């Protein structure tokens, strides 16, 4: 009798497991066999060209963006979140590289990247790609930690996250796309191919980083702090696991390094804090926080964003013991 109950229970667990495997959520739209249309009837993915009315536009130099319409549709409440006029037409109908009267002369660059958008009275305030994404990572605790203390530098690398190469695209197709003459079928085919080619970033393995860092440059009243370096990276990685936005935008394996080692070039052996932050005010760079403040601002800034409640910010000895207490311990 007892055995039968056990057997039934095991069978139930097995069934549940199988069901989980069968009906689990499909993973993003990385796969090439994704449906061509979404719930709203729009294409699942498309290539957004830098549309221009001029025949020899300088926009040819700018790479187009592959936009995953399906994943965005699932994340926003309504079509008007992006199609702010309420009319679901392509952005480039009103916003071109040069700007048009229909779009109130807001050019494509601003429509996609502006973050200083004035609040509209009595109507919906439009959002750009960048302003909406910035809002998301400021709100989510798992993102807000790093993004509280570091702002991505607006450099070529930053642009290249979205403005990627589309391997199958020809020069003619690009020109046609800019002029708005490219066939829809061709556009979709290009987008699908690009999405299929995109691979999620392979984050740096925490085991390849330093295990512990002893911060002892400033020891005086307090004993050196033993910073568990590896644990922090593991934790950061765990927090954003399965986050599609993070996977899409974290483009380098060293992305976590660049949070704390914020101005160091992307590298697996970035420079130390002390190489820029001197213990007392640096006369050449007076605006730079001195070392002690740099540590505290960086640690507490991230913990604030991640809503880490402990240790309290005023509990000094939680991170570094009093020097006198440590001496007694060693005796």
């Amino acid at each position: 009798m007892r055995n039968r109950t056990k057997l039934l229970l095991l069978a139930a667990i097995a069934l549940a497991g199988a069901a989980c495997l069968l009906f689990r959520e499909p993973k993003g739209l990385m796969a090439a066999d994704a449906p061509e249309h979404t719930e709203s009837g729009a294409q699942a993915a498309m290539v957004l060209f830098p549309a221009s009315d001029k025949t020899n536009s300088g926009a040819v130099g700018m790479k187009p963006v592959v936009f995953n319409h399906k994943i965005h549709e699932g994340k926003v409440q309504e079509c008007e979140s992006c199609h702010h006029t309420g009319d679901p037409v392509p952005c480039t109908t009103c916003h071109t590289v040069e700007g048009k009267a229909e779009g109130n002369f807001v050019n494509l660059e601003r429509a996609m990247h502006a973050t200083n958008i004035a609040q509209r009275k009595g109507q919906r305030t439009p959002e750009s790609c960048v302003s909406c994404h910035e809002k998301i990572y400021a709100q989510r605790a798992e993102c807000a930690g790093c993004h509280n203390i570091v702002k991505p530098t607006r450099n070529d690398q930053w642009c290249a996250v979205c403005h990627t190469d589309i391997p199958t695209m020809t020069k003619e197709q690009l020109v046609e796309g800019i002029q708005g003459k490219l066939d829809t079928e061709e556009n979709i085919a290009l987008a699908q191919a690009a999405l299929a080619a995109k691979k999620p970033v392979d984050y740096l393995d925490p085991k390849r980083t330093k295990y512990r860092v002893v911060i002892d440059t400033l020891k005086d009243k307090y004993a050196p702090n033993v910073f568990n370096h590896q644990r922090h990276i593991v934790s950061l990685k765990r927090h954003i696991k399965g986050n599609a936005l993070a996977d899409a935008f974290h483009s380098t394996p060293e992305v976590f390094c660049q949070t704390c080692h914020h101005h160091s070039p992307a590298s697996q052996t970035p420079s130390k804090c002390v190489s820029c932050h001197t213990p007392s005010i640096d006369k050449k760079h007076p605006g730079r926080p001195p070392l002690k403040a740099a540590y505290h601002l960086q640690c507490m800034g991230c913990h604030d964003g991640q809503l880490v409640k402990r240790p309290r910010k005023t509990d000094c000895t939680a991170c570094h013991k009093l020097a006198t207490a440590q001496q007694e311990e060693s005796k």
Partner: protein
Amino acid sequence: MNRRKFLTLLGSAGVVSALGNAATPSTAEASHVFPYYPDSYGVLHDTTRCVGCRRCEEACNTVNALPKPDKPFDDLSVCNTKRRTSATQWTVVNKYEMNGKAVFRKLQCFHCQDPACASACFAKCFQKQPDGSVTYNGSQCVGCRYCMIACPFYAPGFEYNLAWDPLVKKCTFCKPRLDKGELPGCVEACPMEALTFGRRTDLIKVARARIADNPDKYLDYIYGEHDAGGTAWMVLAPANPKGPKIPPENPVLAGPELKQLGLDTHLGNQPMGELTYGALGTVPMIVAFWPVLFGGAYGMTKRREAMHKQAQEQTKREAREDVQAAVDAAVRKIQETEGEGAADRARKAMAEALKARESAGKHGEGA
């Protein structure tokens, strides 16, 4: 000196003094307004960074050799009460509730560009130094505590416990340390760089850059840039994350936000001292002219009284002389017509009648 002469003199003196004020406004102002030192230092207090650890209080206590407080500096519960600076605590950190979030702010002397304490002190104890500090020299202090009343930030404290020679005590901007090339004690001790030391002009740039980089984090208002005519110590406050965005540099709209942090935006852009310089500047004129004015008025009244009395007496004398002349004429006529005896009798009767009338008149006057 008669009335006309006196009035002419007074009038011309008034015109001269008015002209004098109007003709030399620059020199008059220069003598009142404190010099603005372009390279003076200041401190930017970023309340979004302050964690309320009281390290600044501890450092202030140590470097200035102040008496140890009853509660130790690692007791952070004291921040919950709204403490004020005093003679033994030149700086305090208080906890404020700002839009439902705890925000800490350090209180100390703001080291105004044109200090109100200095304008109120008649013993000239306070001095704005070229390095930005407002220093106090108690050698001439009379203990009137006008400075404490004048200060819009309630910064100076008084040694009430001393029976002999109590003095005013307040933050010195660590002037002795600045002179040695060291940072103020509190700034050096701050573990969060919530206190940034630098030239005031640079600090305003730093503050603007921080606001521009984090528009959602900061209230777009540098407290102390213009408040109370500008202060060397300035404060940045966090923005209300849920409320509407406040337009830049708007003291009216930023006021309710900053009030939660115990900061008053109603102090105006004008230095506090300028409110009193005008009134106090007229004191010497009043001292010089009022004795002349009232002395003259007194003299004039007295003189008029004397003249009036003299005129009255003259009239009386003339009237008496007239009566006497009439009596003499009448007596002479009687003498011519009726002889000596009748004239004598008539003169006697008339003299008696006059005497009787005079005494009756005097009686009437007396009554």
